[in-house]
């Protein structure tokens, strides 16, 4: 199943908020400097958000490792071949339906 672009965008933003908060907390824990923590957080937020979005769209094109429904490729109302049509016509005829 494909994802719409809006889903990828919302995922990008939600993850970025979470990840940036984590980065800012870690920087603050190591340096004790609130300004530096916020600065690194903001730069990281914008740059990585853009990278993440393209990374996500790229992975959507790769089917490797995805769970696939066994009948995902079955086209139910595909055009019947002339042979299929003849078989159906004959069976319907044999039962008086044609």
């Amino acid at each position, binding site marked *: 199943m494909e994802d719409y672009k809006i889903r990828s965008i919302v995922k990008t933003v939600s993850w970025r908020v979470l990840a940036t908060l984590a980065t800012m907390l870690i920087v603050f824990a190591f340096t004790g400097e609130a300004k530096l923590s916020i600065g690194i957080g903001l730069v990281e937020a914008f740059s990585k958000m853009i990278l993440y979005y393209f990374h996500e769209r790229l992975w959507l094109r790769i089917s490797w490792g995805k769970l696939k429904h066994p009948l995902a490729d079955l086209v139910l109302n*595909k055009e019947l071949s002339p042979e*299929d049509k003849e078989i*159906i016509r004959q069976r319907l005829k044999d039962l008086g339906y*044609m």
Partner: protein
Amino acid sequence: MEERKALVIGIDGVPFTLVKEYVEKGYMPNLKSILDQGFRLWQMDASLPDISSVSWTTFLTGVNPAEHGIYGFIHLDPRDYSLRFPNSGNVLAPTFFQILGLDPGGKDSSLARKYLPRFKEPRSSIVINVPHTYPAYPMKGVLISGFVALDMARAVYPPVLVSTLKRMNYVIDVDPSKGHRDRDGFLEDLFQALDTRKEAFDLFFQGKWDLFVACITETDRLHHFFFDAALDQDHAYHNDFVDFYRKLDSLIGHLYDVFRSRWGDEGLFMILSDHGFTRLKREVNVNRALEEAGLLKLRKDGERYQRMAPGTKAFALDPCRIHLHMKDRYPLGEVEEGDGESILRDLESIMGDLKDEEGNPVIRSMYRRDEIYQGPFMDDAPHLLCLPVDGYDLKGRVGTDSIFASSVFAGMHNQHDAMLLLPGNKDFSGKPHIGQLAGLLLDYFCGEDH
């Protein structure tokens, strides 16, 4: 979640009147015993028209053809007059087992809108051999398609079960052409197919399910070729016919007993047929009648409906779906919207006056599309649908020499004599219709069946 279980047995083409008579004659002791335990046998109306693809689809979806999109085994492509053969992919409403599984497969219907919000947990179903479910599609449970299925590999969901069924020598349908050339061999095949059907039912019965639908189609095949033997004790095949019904009765009794021993008296047990059957006297070529009335013009060359020529006002598809040759729908169509009413009145008069060589009327009732269909797919509906008097098999053949013809078949469908068996406490305000049963089943599963 309260455990509710339902077993539905479908017996294709089994008429109410014959079952009633066979029960009274003692040919169906198991069914009699079930009736004695508080069940009631109803005479039921089938779909319009009364052919298996339409009737079973109406049963499974609980909506009429203008909502599920299936009007017959064949469909005329309005672009080039070629024949199309609809399959499960053309069913445009979800089935009750898709609704129970909480996965309508992207389809919508009035029934789905009513019932989907009432279920919180998905229920699983096992559905075996119901016609017009090919190709099998993803659903919660197991789906083994019935007639017309071309390839076992696409008739089974999940596909992993194909090898198991092949090992069992499971057959989707007997070869009906054998009924024309080797009647004894055909009968043997029917008996044998019933054995394999039982084996498959037993195998899947052991699984986990909430709803089990087991359909037997050999009855319909038997009737097409041997229905004249049903009540004629002097008929060469009468004993075989009765023996087949005894075997069917034994299978019904077996399934009922297994169901009761596993789930006690609580589960819902139902038997239905998709249409009735009656003896065939004459075939009636409706298109020939339209030709003689000047409403259908045919070219000499071409095949079937591609022979239609300018000047054609109406034509019929099997069994008697009469369509107006509308200007805005068909390349050669000439009927303007405003002329439809007068042509319809002509058609009603022509069909209503149709009599056989002995002066017996042929048509029992006629319906205009607005009277019987409602839904988004009205464009494909016949403008006039005719039902015959029992015995007259209406046909949509093109280019025949005469209206009336003898038939190689012994039996034909009828709409008014399908059968239904339900617990005695289930009631209908009038004669039940096959389209009501999906709602009844869904009511049962959401606990609103009181």
